[in-house]
Structures are given as C-alpha cells and as structure tokens.
C-alpha cells in the first residue's frame, strides 16, 4: 500500500517540480538574462532555486518558491520515514517510468573493480549439486562427472563439462538443471550467447528457475547488456527474494548503469543476506557509505 502511494506521489511531485522549475527559469531568463538562465540549467536547477528565493519578493513568487521547496524537501522527509531501501526502489521506479537513458560514463566502462570482486567471483553461481532429483540410470554418471569438474565457482575444465552435459541432455532433454549447468560451462568458455540460449531453455522448462535467471543476467552483463541483465536479476529475485548473489549481481548492473543509489542498496541487501563482497568493494571505492 505504502509503495503504491509513493509510486503515485513521487512521479507527481517530480512533474510538478519540473513545471515550477520551468516557470522560475523563464522568469530567470527574462529578468536575470540569458547567462543566469543557462547557469540555472547547468546546475540542475539549483541556481534557479537559489535565484528564485533571492528574487521571490520583487518578482512576487513566494508561493511558487514555497511549493518548489516542499517538492524538494518531501523526498528527504520520506527518506527519513521509510528508509533508504524503499527510497532506492522509488528512484528506480521513477527512472523506469521516465525511461532513464543509459548514460554510461567512462569511469564505469573502465571499471576500477577490486580484484577480489572480479567478474567471475562476483557473478559465478554455485550450481545445484542435486541437479537430478530422479536421475535416469543412464545419465546419472554424466551429471556426476560434470559436477565433479565444478570447483571454486567454475568448471576447471569447461570443455569437458560441456561434453558431459551434452550427454546428460541427450539422455533427458527436459532437465532444466542440465541446461543451466551447460550454460555455466559455456559461460566459463566465454561463449556467452550460447550460455544465454541454454539458460533460456532452462527457463522455458522451469519458468520459476531463479538461478537460471541469475545466470542469464550474468551472461547479459558479460555482453555489457545491462538492462537485460537487470531484468533477469529482477526476475530471479521475484522467485527467490533472499538470493544474495542476485542482489549483488543486480548491484553491479546498477553500478554499470550509473545508478549508484540502487547499486548500494543492493550491495547492502546482499550483505544482509550474507554476501558482503559487493558492499566491501563499493565502500573501498567510495561509492557506498
């Protein structure tokens, strides 16, 4: 209920804020000159806001400025009331409604990622050891053989693992876990497109397969397709809300999309759920406090 109210309130406040900003900006251009107006635009409206308060009496816009102040202060008050996580969600929602453009900065492209949080460590997913709940006698060995190759979050011989999973899939083509795990082998081989196809097949077989969504998100991430990655992590978390890895991975995707607030919020959530790698890295790099 609260989320719904905030979901309506926030975009409404933003819209009214924009209208008020435009009105004051027009006055700024008219009375302060072009330079003042341009300064108002290039300071995210902050200079316009201050100028508006300086001139509010002479230009009879006290009420307008009070309204603008209320609009600016409300999110901070709501933050105090509802906390960071909820506000992070709200900002995300507004971004989605507004169709937030992908303004990826150079800083993000270069990624000053802590070696301890390298891509494989951060996004590798431990496969389910009980991949086949009722294994057929003729493919149990292939599952076991492939799983035996899984060490430290990745296959030590992904080529061989892929072959084993090929055989396991040939024996039982309806085994979602086998597709998921062959996808991981493809992922380790850096054949991300094939990995996506396998994860997608696993999802087709089991549409609520949270781990497969998470893994497909990682593959999209590896291809720098952050929006698709985010969508997959969202799906993963929908089916498994306390999935620390998916929170951490979504945090990374947010970071790449320059959504630092949401990124921190996810790193913190992942840490609450037991995986603090992301938060530690973000704090070391000065992005989260």
């Amino acid at each position: 209920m609260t989320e719904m109210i905030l979901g309506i309130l926030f975009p409404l406040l933003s819209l009214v804020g924009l209208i008020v900003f435009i009105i004051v900006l027009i006055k700024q251009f008219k009375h302060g000159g072009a330079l003042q107006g341009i300064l108002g635009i290039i300071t995210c409206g902050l200079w316009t806001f201050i100028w508006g308060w300086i001139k509010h009496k002479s230009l009879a816009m006290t009420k307008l400025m009070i309204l603008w102040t209320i609009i600016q202060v409300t999110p901070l008050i709501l933050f105090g009331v509802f906390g960071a996580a909820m506000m992070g969600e709200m900002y995300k929602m507004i971004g989605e409604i507004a169709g937030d453009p992908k303004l990826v900065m150079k800083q993000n492209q270069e990624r000053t990622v802590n070696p301890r949080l390298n891509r494989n460590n951060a996004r590798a997913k431990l496969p389910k050891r009980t991949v086949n709940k009722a294994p057929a006698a003729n493919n149990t060995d292939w599952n076991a053989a492939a799983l035996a190759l899984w060490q430290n979050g990745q296959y030590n011989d992904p080529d061989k693992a892929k072959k084993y999973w090929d055989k396991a899939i040939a024996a039982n083509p309806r085994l979602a876990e086998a597709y998921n795990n062959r996808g991981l082998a493809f992922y380790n081989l850096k054949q991300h497109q094939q990995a996506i196809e396998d994860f997608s097949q696993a999802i087709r077989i089991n549409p609520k397969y949270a781990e497969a969504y998470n893994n497909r998100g990682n593959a999209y991430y590896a291809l720098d397709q952050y929006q698709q990655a985010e969508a997959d992590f969202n799906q993963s978390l929908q089916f498994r809300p306390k999935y620390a890895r998916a929170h951490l991975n979504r945090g990374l995707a947010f970071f790449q999309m320059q959504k630092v607030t949401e990124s921190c919020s996810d790193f913190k959530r992942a840490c609450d759920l037991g995986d603090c790698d992301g938060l530690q890295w973000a704090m070391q790099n000065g992005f989260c406090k």
Partner: protein
Amino acid sequence: MKADRFKMTAVSDRLCTPVLAPVMQSRWIIALLGAATVIQVAVTAMDLTAWQCPLKSTLGVACPGCGLTRAIVLLAQGKWQAAIHLHAFAPVGLAIGLLLVAGTLLPAKLRHRAAEHLATFERRSGMVAWLALSALIYWICRIMIYI
C-alpha cells in the same frame, strides 16, 4: 546600422555580466549557497540524492550538471581520475566553491575589493559565459557519446 551595433554591444554586455562577483559581495547569499552545497555534498556522500534535478527525475534526461556533485565529492576524496571521468567540470566547480568561500572569510573591505576585481575580470573575459557555453557543449558531447 547604429541600432544593430548597439544591440550587439548589449548582448555581449549581458553575456559578460558578472555573476560570481555579486555573489561574493553578499555574505548571506554565500551562506545560503554554502549551506545548500554542504547539504548536497553531505547527502551525496551518503549515496543519497539531496537535490532532485527536475529534468532527470521527470524526463530521465541528465542535465549538464548531473553528476557534478558526486564528481566533486570524489575530487575532495583525492580520486581525481574518477572525478574527471564522472564530470570534467568537477575541478571548476570545486575551484569556484573555494573561491567564494575564501571571499567570505575576508574582512568586509577586502571582500568588496576582491569582488570588484572579480567583476572586472568577469566583464573583460566573459569567463562565466565561456564556462557555461563549454558546459553545454560538454553535455551535448556526453549525451552523444554515452547514450
């Protein structure tokens, strides 16, 4: 002909109108700006959004100043490379902030003299207009390259 010439002079005069100097003249405007800056920087350092950019929050379009506070925070933390990558105008923003703060700390007489010098410099160089123009160009480039 005369009218045209007069018009041109008027436009150039308006673009070279001092902006920083009048701010430096008034202590309470600097106090207001300083308070706004401190709140903005402190809240940004906490990974929150203090000042909602009306363009970004409503239309999802980053304005030329979006990212500047975060870049200044990074710069203040000594991470100059990350700061420049995030927003190339971070050093300019920080320098202007420091200039204004330094101005306020001066005694009234000295502050007025400094403001006068600054006004003359702004009028002659059109510094703020150039900075504003380059910020707009930088913004367009940023949008064209990174979207």
